[in-house]
């Protein structure tokens, strides 16, 4: 996360968020809204029924209404707490959406029409296919691809990153986003989306949760919860005839209390908050998921395809070792190679200078007086170097240098050939260094595997996810890097169509595949993958093909996305298990309370020794309401995910949320009962 992004979120105070959520939780009482959540709808209906009964009791019977009143109040609180959880989860997104809306403000666009003519139109009039010209200082009026020119663009409105980025025609950095600003130069952009369908629009909808559709797993879970609710409704409705048979009929308050305590209100109340919070966690990591389905799929991923460069290794190869020939002083080799590289501005060349300086303490020479003549690298010679003081120093590909030396009538020392083979075999790229007609030694350029990446792959393996490295390197080099980085498999000499074939073959085996990509030629694979993360710097085609966009354009983010997906699912499962397990204690609170007046023997079921039947029922209802509030932070933050095997994870979570779910309410209800009795509320 970048500084500005963090700052943007800190700007909204918690208090503002909370007060707005409180307001929203009342608005959400609208039965039409509640109907989307069957469990909480039943609670609302129950609360409404007890309210009516309460009013009836007050006006017609003048009965003692203290108990009924308190039950009714807490039933309404139960509904409000659940609404509050959802409103809190939505709140963060809403605040962010406001910021984004500002960026979407109406701008003027210079549309090209005819031959070189332009006209000024409002950005809202632009359609896909229109071509506009944007100059320094102007806002880009809509999403599109640069078709002409290069410009630096400030994309902080979307990404939160304040450093400008370069956008240019052709290649993989051609996509521009509406609402971002051109800082220098001028570009011609072909608009690719209609008003209301831009990236910014979609992002606003997503963070607001406006276009939120229930994900497949959420739908299935809702069915389960609705089913359990009906079962408990049956259990409670039929209990009254049994109670009548037994000569101990019950009043409405008790029956509704029992029902509300039994139906899975904890998970029912927090389910949508969990989903929204999961999306929000992605957004906070600057990843925009185009659907909740994609986040869920991320949790299920079996295979991760990772590009080598930039993800597993640092972008460029670096010199890591010098190997001198027999009879050659290593320092001489170092000095020679330093001289040959001084004018070499490639990252490899610079890394040689750095290596020599750090390892051999050789500082750069003042070369001007030696009248050097630098030989640049060319595709024909495949080497570069310097001529100075009558010396000719060359460095380059082994076969090129060998040829160079042979032409000068000298032989290559036998040992160096083996060194070259060894460097290549261990995943490096060998360079040979020659002075005049003599080979001095070899330089090993190696891919530097990113720090900590091995641990991350170990974590992924523990989760049961296989990592596959995609590289254009030859198989030998690829194997060496794969070994070093700890990936499970690699695809060497990969062409874009190979990536596609690999995804398809994994999917045919029933596996879910995730990958990231940026180029237009990645687009088909991104679309084929179950989780396709497009880099924001990439082309428009790639961004449309994938189902997520990483605004930071960091390919390693894929791992975090998977973890967030898993965390979302675990949180859902944990709270469902907790919710169902809670019922055991509630039975032991309410059933004896219902019948111990008629049958004092049932008092033995009152294992918590709750003070009175009324306090027992009320304590259970209060616990049931408060547990929703107590778990809001967990629902929003998510259960902590540990990368261990499924069996270990299951055992751990079953202990915490299953067994814990059985025990916690015994303690909680008892404490509330003690408090109620102490305060003489009942």
């Amino acid at each position, binding site marked *: 996360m970048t500084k500005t992004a963090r700052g943007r979120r800190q700007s909204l105070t918690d208090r503002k968020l909370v007060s707005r959520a409180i307001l929203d939780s009342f608005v959400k009482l609208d039965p039409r809204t509640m109907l989307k959540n069957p469990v909480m709808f039943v609670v609302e209906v129950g609360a409404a029924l007890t309210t009516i009964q309460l009013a009836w009791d007050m006006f017609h019977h003048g009965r003692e209404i203290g108990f009924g009143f308190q039950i009714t109040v807490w039933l309404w609180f139960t509904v409000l707490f659940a609404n509050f959880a959802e409103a809190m989860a939505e709140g963060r997104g809403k605040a962010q959406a406001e910021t984004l809306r500002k960026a979407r403000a109406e701008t003027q666009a210079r549309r090209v029409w005819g031959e070189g003519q332009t006209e000024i139109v409002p950005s809202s009039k632009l359609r896909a296919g229109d071509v506009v010209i944007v100059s320094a200082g102007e806002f880009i009026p809509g999403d599109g691809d640069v078709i002409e020119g290069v410009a630096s663009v400030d994309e902080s409105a979307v990404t939160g990153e304040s450093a400008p980025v370069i956008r240019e025609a052709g290649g993989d950095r051609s996509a521009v986003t509406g609402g971002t600003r051109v800082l220098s130069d001028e570009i011609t952009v072909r608009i690719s989306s209609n008003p209301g369908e831009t990236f910014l629009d979609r992002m606003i909808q997503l963070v607001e949760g406006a276009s939120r559709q229930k994900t497949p797993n959420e739908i299935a879970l809702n*069915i389960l919860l609705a089913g359990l609710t009906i079962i408990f409704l*049956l259990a409670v409705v039929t209990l009254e005839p049994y109670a009548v048979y037994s000569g101990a009929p019950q009043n409405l308050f008790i029956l509704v209390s029992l029902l509300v305590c039994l139906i899975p209100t904890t998970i029912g109340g927090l389910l949508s908050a969990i989903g929204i919070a999961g999306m929000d966690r992605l957004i906070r990591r600057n990843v925009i998921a185009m659907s909740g389905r994609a986040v869920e799929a991320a949790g299920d991923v*079996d295979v991760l395809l990772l590009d080598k460069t930039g993800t597993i290794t640092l972008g460029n190869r670096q010199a890591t070792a010098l190997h001198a020939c027999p009879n050659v002083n290593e320092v001489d080799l170092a000095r020679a190679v330093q001289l040959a590289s001084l004018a070499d501005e490639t990252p490899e060349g610079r890394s040689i200078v750095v290596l020599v300086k750090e390892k051999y303490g050789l500082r750069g020479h003042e070369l001007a007086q030696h009248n050097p003549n630098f030989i640049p690298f060319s595709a024909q010679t495949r080497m570069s170097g310097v001529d100075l003081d009558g010396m000719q120093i060359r460095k380059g590909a082994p076969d090129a240098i060998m040829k160079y030396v042979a032409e000068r009538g000298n032989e290559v020392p036998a040992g160096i050939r083996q060194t070259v083979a060894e460097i290549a075999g261990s995943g490096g790229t060998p360079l040979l260094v020659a002075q005049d007609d003599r080979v001095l030694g070899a330089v090993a350029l190696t891919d530097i595997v990113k720090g900590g990446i091995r641990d991350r792959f170990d974590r992924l393996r523990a989760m049961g996810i296989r990592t596959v490295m995609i590289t254009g390197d030859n198989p030998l080099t690829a194997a060496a890097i794969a070994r070093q980085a700890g990936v499970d498999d690699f695809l060497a000499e990969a062409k874009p169509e190979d990536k596609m074939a690999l995804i398809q073959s994994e999917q045919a085996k029933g596996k879910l595949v995730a990958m990231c990509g940026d180029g237009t030629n990645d687009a088909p694979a991104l679309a084929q993958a179950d989780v396709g993360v497009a880099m924001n710097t990439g082309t428009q085609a790639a961004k449309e093909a994938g189902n997520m966009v990483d605004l930071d354009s960091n390919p390693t983010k894929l791992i975090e996305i998977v973890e967030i997906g898993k965390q979302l699912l675990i949180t859902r499962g944990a709270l469902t298990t907790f919710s169902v397990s809670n019922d055991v204690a509630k*039975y032991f609170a309410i059933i004896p309370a219902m019948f111990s007046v008629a049958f004092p023997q049932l008092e033995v*079921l009152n294992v918590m020794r709750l003070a009175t039947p009324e306090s027992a029922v009320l304590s259970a209802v209060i616990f049931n309401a408060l547990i929703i509030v107590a778990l809001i932070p967990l629902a929003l933050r998510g259960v902590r995910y540990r990368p261990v095997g499924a069996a270990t994870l299951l055992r751990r979570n079953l202990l915490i949320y299953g067994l814990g779910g059985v025990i916690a309410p015994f303690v909680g209800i008892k404490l509330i009962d003690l408090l109620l009795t102490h305060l003489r509320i009942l």
Partner: protein
Amino acid sequence: MTALGWFQILFYLFVIFLITKPVGIFLARVFEGEKTFLDSVLRPVEKLVYRLTGVDEKHEMRWTEYAIAMLLFSGVSMVLLYVLERLQRWMPFNPQKLPNVDPTLAFGTAASFTTNTNWQAYSGETTMSYLTQMAGLAYHNFVSAAVGIVLAIVVIRGIARRETEELGNFWVDMTRCLLWVLLPVCLVASLALVSQGVVQNLEPYTTAQLIVPHTEQVRGADGKITIEKVTEQVIPQGPVASQEAIKEFGTNGGGFFNANSSHPFENPTPLSNFLEMVLIFAIPSGLTYTLGRMSGSQRHGWAVWAAMAFLFFAGVTTTYWAEARGNPLLHGVDQQASAMQAGGNMEGKEVRFGVADSALFATITTDASCGAVNSMHDSDTPLGGLVPLVNIMLGEVVFGGVGAGLYGIVVFVILAVFIAGLMVGRTPEYLGKKIEAYDVKMAMLSILILTLTILGFSAVAAVEPFGTSSITNPGPHGLSQILYAYTSSAGNNGSAFAGLNANTPWYNVTTAVAQLLGRFFMIVPILAIAGNLARKKTIPESSGTFPVTGALFSTLLVSTIVIVGALTFFPALSLGPILEHLLMLAGKTF
């Protein structure tokens, strides 16, 4: 409780463990069309059956076609039984000249035997002719059991097969089940039972002169009680052994006689008793192995078996403890087990079986949807009677009915996998199949139907005179009687708290409806699950996959069954057997 009692229980469980694998392998081979040692004899018979009936052996059915075939077959069979009962007076093999069966009772009995429930609101020896017993009831004992088994096989195929609509052929599966599994085993088992003294004949009932006549109080038609001297006894006869084996092996439970397996002609010796108990669990236990074998995860099969064995053991321990403890209200009565007496609560129990074998039989028969009894559950102590009731309420998934137990527990497996599966951070999957909205919907539907049927009918019966008038004991025991009747019906068990007078139009019709709902409305959603699972891709297993093997999974499965079952029925139970138990401790019985 005695050492011998415990030994019998543990030995029984051990024998069941031993036969699980061979039975499981044999069932898998029969239904996968692999070679078995019976092929040379049975294959020609099978081919002849197909030639005569025009069944195409190679034709595979979708789940809907399978379901329709099953429903049609069951429907037609049910009508035939009804007709037979209504016309038995004019049919052969009726030496006692028993009249035609009353319409509601005939309907109730037809539904009961078609659904593998074998709820009996009649006494066999005074109601059913030999023809009705053999061609009607025994026929249903075979085919209703076969229907259960083939449905379990279809569910297993659904789990094991991938990306297909094909689930097998109902007619072929039925034929193979009858020819390879049910008929051969029952043939051998019947002979074994005959060796113990079970009768098998078509004779009229025998009348014996009592050596010592006795007097009896008889209530006349005018309600007056008169004292009558009894000098002779009628001893019923009949083709019992042939019906006895399938009664157990097919988990049917419908006794030839009213006294069921406590009658000496049905179950004469402890050895016959043991054999009958083994026959009840043989197929249900074996099917867990079949599940493991066909789905390619033998350890999953054993994990399911272990969960069942645990619940079984917990149940039998409770019943045995409750019954061996006797009645605490009988002060000054020796209820200790000793060389001279079985001890404990012997009301409603046979002396030749004693407390341990009665508790064991009661647990087995209600774990499985058998319903055969060798003691009267109505006479059990409140907790002793609670266990059979709870066993059925849990859905009879503790080994369960033939086939029904397996497909029943698959529903719980799906729920367990769905609820807890999320906790490993993947959307739930069961043996490589994703569990999605449709599967959850169907699983919940089948559980809902069971709950609705049991609690709904019981609730009406508990407050309406036509329900409560059949109760013979007041108070919580009366509620237990009603609950047991509908639980047993909806669960297709067939055992009863026999105190309830169930032969009334209300009970005959409503129990029959409960049985039909509990059977066919359960089966169709489960078949739908099988069809849906078969269509899915299989996801290869990894270390991130939810484990459906091992002790952890067994524990999870047990918890799911207990929590879902107990939470649903706890309120009702608390006013029935639990309250009765507590009142008994307080000195009040019913």
